[in-house]
Each structure stands twice: as C-alpha cells, then as structure tokens.
C-alpha cells in the first residue's frame, strides 16, 4: 500500500485519506499535535519535484475532495475541490464551452491542489498568465486545524492580503489546499497550430519573437528538438521545431496560419505544416516534462528559466555546458516565448554535478535560474532549488508563522524550508 507513495526510497508510516475538508483539517491538527510530518498528496504526478522530505510519517491524500463546490457558468467563475483531477474539471467546464488553461502533465491523474501547490504552468501560460493570475481565491487547512479562506469568488477583489496566491507554488509547506476558485474562460471558437522545422538552432530561436508579436496573439509558442518532437509528432523530420498555437474566431485563424508560415519561411524553416490531431498533440506536448522523466529515468532533468530575450543564449548555454563536460547534448523542450526550458542530460554523476554548478553561475549572469526536476540516484543530494538570496529570511519567517513545528513537507522546499 505505501509503496505507491514512496519518495526516493522513503515510505510513509500512514496513508490518511480524509473524506472532506473538515476531516483533512482535523487529521492535520492531530499530526501537528504529535509533531508527525505530513506530505500532502494529490495524484502524485509532481512528487518527483523538490527535495526529499527530511521526515516522512504521513501522507495526507486529497483525492476525496473531488467535488464541484460551485460553478456559476454565466459568471465565468467556478470553485473546485482540491482533489479533483484536471481532466474532471475540464469535462465539467466543457459542457458550457468553457475551460481552464491548466495544461500540465498527466491531467488524468494530476489534481488541482497538487498543480497549484507545485506551481507548475504549461504552454497556455503565454496567453492566460500563470495559474495565480486567474485563481480568484482558495481555502487551505492550516496545522492548527483551521480552514482559512483567502481571496474571493468574484473576478476582482482587494480585501486583504493575497494569501491565496502565496499558497501557489508553496509546495504545501504553509498549509494544504482544500478548494480553489477560478475565473474560467470561454473556449476559443476555433484553434489552429502551425509546426515549423529548422536546421539551425539560431533560426528556430529567431522565429519566436516575431511569432509572439503577431497581431493575433498566440496562445502558446513551444520549442522542441528532434527527440522531444517525436513525443508529439512521431513522423516529424528536422533538428529544431517551433510550434505556435492560435485561438479565436474562425475568420482570424486562416490569416494567423498564413502569417505564421510566412515568418517561419523568413527564418529559413524548411517545412511548415498545420497540426492535424490538435487536441491529442497538445495533450502529448503538455506531458513532455513527465515523459522525459519516464523515458529517461537515469537522466538529469532541469527546468531553466531566463528573461524572454535570453532564450537563444540559454539554449546555446545548455549545449555548450554539455560539451564542456564531454557529455551528450541535452534533449530540449521549451515554452519558448517566456523562456522556460526543460533540458535532459545523460552523463556520469560527477560530470552532471559539475554541469549544474557551472550552469547555475552562467544563468545567474543573464538573470536566470534553474530547478532540478528529476535526478538519478547518485545525484540525490544535490539541492533541487536555486539559492533564493536575501528573500529567504522572509520565507523562513513565513514558514515559522504557519508551520511552527515544521511538519508540512519538511525540507522539500527552497532553502531547507
């Protein structure tokens, strides 16, 4: 039973699966009274992220918090239990032609609470912003057994601190999300996507800014290499790929496709094609960060983030850093316009460790940083997170105010939090 909850060879003593938010809060308070550590768990699809827990006593699983709490389709707002899967949410919203841009890996298992706590975003962040921008409020259980409400259920609210947003990406170290309210979006009446292939990395990178600047703003601009492209389009030929996704009225889609093709040609693309199996393609593409872990379990996977204009520099840095360590070039996938890059490296442990150290320094000089998202066992001790600098003091203080006994996901987050 506990093996499915193993984290880097650690297994929990108890699996707690509360029926509702109140029971979850009570169980959390009990664990706190016993100073017994808690790893919040949704679908487990993102548990490879972060450092291993310093203590691993209990799993608190949210999967039974899977109710639609409120859905006002006419107001374009909805409140969902944290244990609902992303697919369940998508199906319910689709009945009204609406959706949430939560395009994360394994939506069939990933839960809302897990996705929010891990702070992951997919390709659609380009158009719709990060999750916290369209999340209006939430509730979370704190270690004293309270359920705290923050934010609101309407589209604008400035009453109180944005405590609900602080929960996003906090890795469950301040509390456990029990529900969240969103501004939902009408589905675009039509969508098209254009895939362009390039022989040169520089050409592929150069296509990104003009695509981003199109008058019909793209929903997503993604970048793939010859390995990652096969995860979405097995027959694709070429070295580097850029795919742009557009949504809007039917009348605007043909024009967007033509302009997109024109830009790709100007940047020396040798083939440009429309994506035919649209939904399947984007689902597979959103899965790539997970697929890379599944297909290459012994590789070191990192997410590199730089300011948008440094995208090409960062891609080149990743290639040259591998060459400097005499290891093969990494497999690459990126949310290109916003410059969030996944790089998967093969190599021996010492070369990979040296690579991480070198890259951290090089990225720092262009205003970027990296997070290790998956590492082979010999590299388990590498800190997954970047140093966060002088802000750490505030973060530690915040942690101590919300979890004084340090029972929530101990040591999994930045700076030993």
């Amino acid at each position: 039973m506990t093996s499915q909850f193993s984290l880097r060879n650690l297994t929990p003593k108890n699996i707690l699966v509360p029926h509702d938010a109140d029971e979850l809060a009570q169980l959390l308070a009990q664990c706190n009274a016993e100073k017994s550590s808690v790893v919040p768990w949704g679908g487990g699809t993102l548990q490879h992220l972060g450092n291993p827990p310093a203590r691993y006593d209990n799993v608190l699983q949210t999967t039974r918090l899977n109710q639609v709490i409120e859905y006002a389709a006419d107001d374009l707002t909805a409140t969902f239990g944290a244990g609902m899967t992303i697919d369940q949410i998508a199906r319910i919203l689709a009945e009204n032609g609406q959706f949430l841009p939560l395009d994360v890996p394994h939506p069939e298992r990933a839960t809302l609470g897990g996705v929010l706590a891990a702070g992951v975003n997919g390709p659609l962040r380009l158009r719709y912003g990060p999750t916290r921008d369209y999340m209006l409020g939430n509730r979370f259980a704190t270690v004293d057994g309270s359920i705290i409400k923050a934010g609101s259920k309407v589209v604008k609210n400035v009453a109180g601190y944005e405590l609900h947003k602080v929960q996003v990406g906090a890795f469950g170290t301040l509390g456990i999300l029990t529900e969240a309210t969103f501004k939902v979006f009408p589905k675009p009446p039509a969508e098209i996507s254009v895939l362009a292939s390039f022989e040169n990395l520089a050409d592929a990178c150069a296509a990104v800014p003009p695509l981003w600047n199109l008058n019909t703003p793209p929903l997503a601009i993604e970048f793939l290499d010859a390995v990652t492209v096969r995860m979405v389009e097995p027959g694709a030929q070429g070295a580097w790929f850029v795919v742009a996704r557009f949504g809007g009225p039917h009348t605007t889609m043909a024009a967007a496709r033509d302009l997109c093709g024109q830009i790709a040609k100007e940047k020396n693309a040798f083939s440009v094609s429309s994506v035919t199996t649209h939904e399947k393609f984007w689902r597979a593409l959103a899965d790539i960060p997970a697929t890379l872990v599944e297909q290459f379990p012994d590789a070191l996977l990192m997410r590199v983030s730089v300011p948008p204009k440094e995208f090409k520099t960062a891609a080149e840095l990743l290639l040259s850093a591998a060459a400097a360590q005499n290891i093969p070039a990494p497999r690459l996938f990126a949310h290109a316009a916003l410059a969030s890059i996944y790089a998967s490296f093969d190599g021996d442990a010492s070369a990979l460790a040296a690579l991480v150290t070198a890259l951290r320094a090089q990225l720092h000089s262009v205003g970027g940083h990296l997070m290790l998202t998956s590492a082979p066992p010999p590299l388990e001790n590498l800190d997954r997170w970047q140093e966060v600098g002088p802000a750490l003091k505030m973060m530690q203080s915040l942690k101590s105010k919300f979890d004084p006994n340090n029972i929530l996901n101990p040591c999994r987050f930045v700076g030993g939090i």
Partner: protein
Amino acid sequence: MRKVNDQDLMNPISPAVKELQQLLGESNVLWRPDDLRVYSYDGSNNMATPDLVVLPSTASQISRIIKLARRYNMAIVPRGSGTGLCGAITPIAGGIMIVFARMKQILNIDLENRTALVEPGVINLDVSTALAPYRYFYAPDPSSQAACSIGGNVANNSGGPHCLLYGVTANHVLGIEVVLEDGEIVWLGGAAPDEQGYDLVAAFIGSEGTLGIITKILVRIMPLPETTRTLLAVFNTIEQASRTVSGVIGAGIIPAAIEMIDGTTIRAVEAAYNIGLPLDADAVLLIEVDGPKAGIDELQQMLADFCIEYGARDVRIARNEQERADLWKARKTALGALGRLAPNYYIQDGVVPRSKLPYVLEQQDAIAKKYNVTIANVLHAGDGNLHPNILFDAREQGAYERVRQVGGEILKLCVKVGGTISGEHGVGIEKLDYMPLLFTPADLDAQARLRDAIAPTRILNPCKMLPQGSRCGEVTKSNLPSAIAGNTDVWI
C-alpha cells in the same frame, strides 16, 4: 506607537528633523504645519496630518529613513499621488510620510522582454505615453490614471475599466525592489518566469504599504492591439443595461471593457460637458473590444445586436479616435461632474457576481430610498464592480454618518450575494469595519501572520487593512481618526 502631540511638535531643531535634513537636504523635509496640511488627505473623505513629510530620491535614503523612524518609534506612511479612495495613506498614527515626488523616473524599457522598470512615483499614464511610440502599452488603467502613481497602484492592486480583459495590477507586475522595515533592500521576482520560493511579489501587491516600501517596479508591457472598437448603448432602464452585461459575459464574450453609468450620472455629465447623451435615459453602456482587424467587425456587430436584443434604444459606434474619446468622456468625467449635484460624494467599491447585477442594483435602489439619499452609479459592469456614489453635503449635521450607513448596507448586500467589499480601491481605514463580513477571525489571523512574518514591528502604515483585534498594534482607539471612531472629521 508615538503620536506626536502639540508640546513636542516637530520643528527644525527637533533631532529627527535635523537628522532627516542632513540625509535628504532641507528642502526635502517638510515640518511646518501649513506644509503638512497638504499631505493630510487622499481621495477619500478621511483626514489626518503626518508629523513630517520626506521626499527621498533613492532606496538607500528610504532605508535610512526607516531606520531613523524605528529609533524614534514613529510610523512610516508611504504616499503616491494621493488619489486613493480608502484612506490607506491617511496617517492616523502620525509619523513620517514618505512621498515619491522625487522618484518618477522610467528607468528602462525593454521591448524584447516586454518589461519596463519604473520608480514608484511614475504616473500610470506616463508609462503608456512613453511606450506609445513603440506601439506598446501598460494595461492597468485606473480612472485616475492621469494622476495616480504606479507605486500606489501596486500598493492597492488597482484595477480600471480594461482589467475586464487584461486583469488587475497584480497580473502586470513581474518584480519589485522593496525596503523592509529593518532597512534591508531586497529584490523580489524578475523578468525570468518560474521564480522559486514563496510568491512574495504577490504578497506585497495590494499590501497597502504595510509590508515594506516599494522602490522599483518591473512591470509587464504589451503590444497595443491592432484595432479598437467602442460602442455606446443607451437604455431606458438600468435593468435592461445590467441584463445586457450578464448576457454578453454569459455568452462567453469578454470585451476589453464594459462600463455603465446610470441616469443620475448621465444628467450630471450632460449638465457639465454637454456630450449629447439623452437626458431621459436611465443607463448607458460603454463597450470596448480590441484585437486583430480580422474578425473585429463581426464582434462589434454581435455586441450591437446583443444590446438591441436586450432593449437598447440606440447604439452608437465610434468611427474614429476622436469619437472614441468622446464616448469615453462620459465615463471619465463622471465623478467630476457629480459636483454639480452635491458638494460631496461617498464612493463604494463592492463587487458582485455579474449575473447578480440586476438584482443588486434594484436592492441598492431600495436602500437609497430607505435612507432618502441619491446614488449616482458608475460601474465597471463587466467585472460586476459597483461604484455607487452616495451624494451628500458634509456641512449638514449627520449627513456623513448617514451615507456611511448606506455604504455599509450596500457592502453587506454585496457580500450576501457572494461578492466582496472592495474590488480595486482597497481596505485602508475605510473598510476595516467590513472585513469581518468576509473573513472569520481565523482568516484574519492568518492574514496577520503574513504581515507579522514580514513586518512584525508594525511601524509601516500601522492600522491599515486588518481590523482591530487582528493585532493592529499599539495604536489606541482614542487616536484613531473619525472614520473608525465614528465622529465626523470630513474635509469639506
């Protein structure tokens, strides 16, 4: 916290003034009562005078000002342009007011990263004006955008008509430089995505100056849409107009803005500016859509059809930029025009689910009748954000208490239908009493813990945002202003 009283009134020989003059130069430290009076109010009806006003130019000066304030146990109150509507900058505990008039530089515009780095005193509209030659803009556009500062916008998480499509200030701030209460200067966030650690940028946005003093802001900028279309629809009843709004949103159309003004406001605007609105109309909707040229005609037609279907008696479409400006004039001059109807107005800022607009406006009307007051409505209707302006004459005995009661009833109504007490103006001191309508003591305690984690001494803008009882600090009821204590001290 020390409230300086008459016997130790700040003067040029007091040690705090002397130290500050050495740090900032004599002209950047104001201490004469006449000078201070100018800084005693904001856009709300509240008033309190700071002990000192300082005009620093750099973050390191601000760091030293905060250290000094701690030594003298004086409060720090940051002030942007003073257009706020909730008393967030009313120095109710006295202290040192930091004014950003010397920090108005746009430091950098980076089109490739789609960012601009600005100082907090930069005026909102000046950012978009500076970006216009490049065909970029800064999206959040509070109605006071020609006067309000970006620092103030960030402190209040300001909205504006176009946040229906583009989102509020929080969605457009990527990073901030902030001076903490121990004087440390810290950068949070930045142009790279996926910032690691807690989202402290989110914590500071809308924190009304209670967590730290923001000294630089990295804002997100966007390319101007290829084209913009503006419609004005005239309705015989406010119910028709509000049903149109719910209908448009419910149909999955999200324009860039949907604004509403009611009959009372229309007549005030007409009397003042003669824009050509029909005096017998009960509501006007201003709808704007933007985007690529392809498809915009169809969208415009669809919206016009919607308005007619829901009972609009006239739909006007701006044919050029001048006509667009004319249509917006009705909305943008609305508050100023209210001066024709009464010497004072008390503006509220509740938000309701958009489908509840017809019901809420009807109920609000009943409240107005019950208290025998006139309400002029200006709404960010697309967001369900009400701005009822309750008209009054502050010279009249008991008038301010009555309009505050009316405001309170309206906010209770908003909360009852699932809404909130403030959409964009903030809590400040105006809405402290209403926070418990929305939040339980445990919720408020969690918020207080966030504040105490970052700014435990509470010298930064004390007694704002969180009501008494959620660890407001040492300020006692006796030196709180009328807005809280319940007396009238309205500026007339």
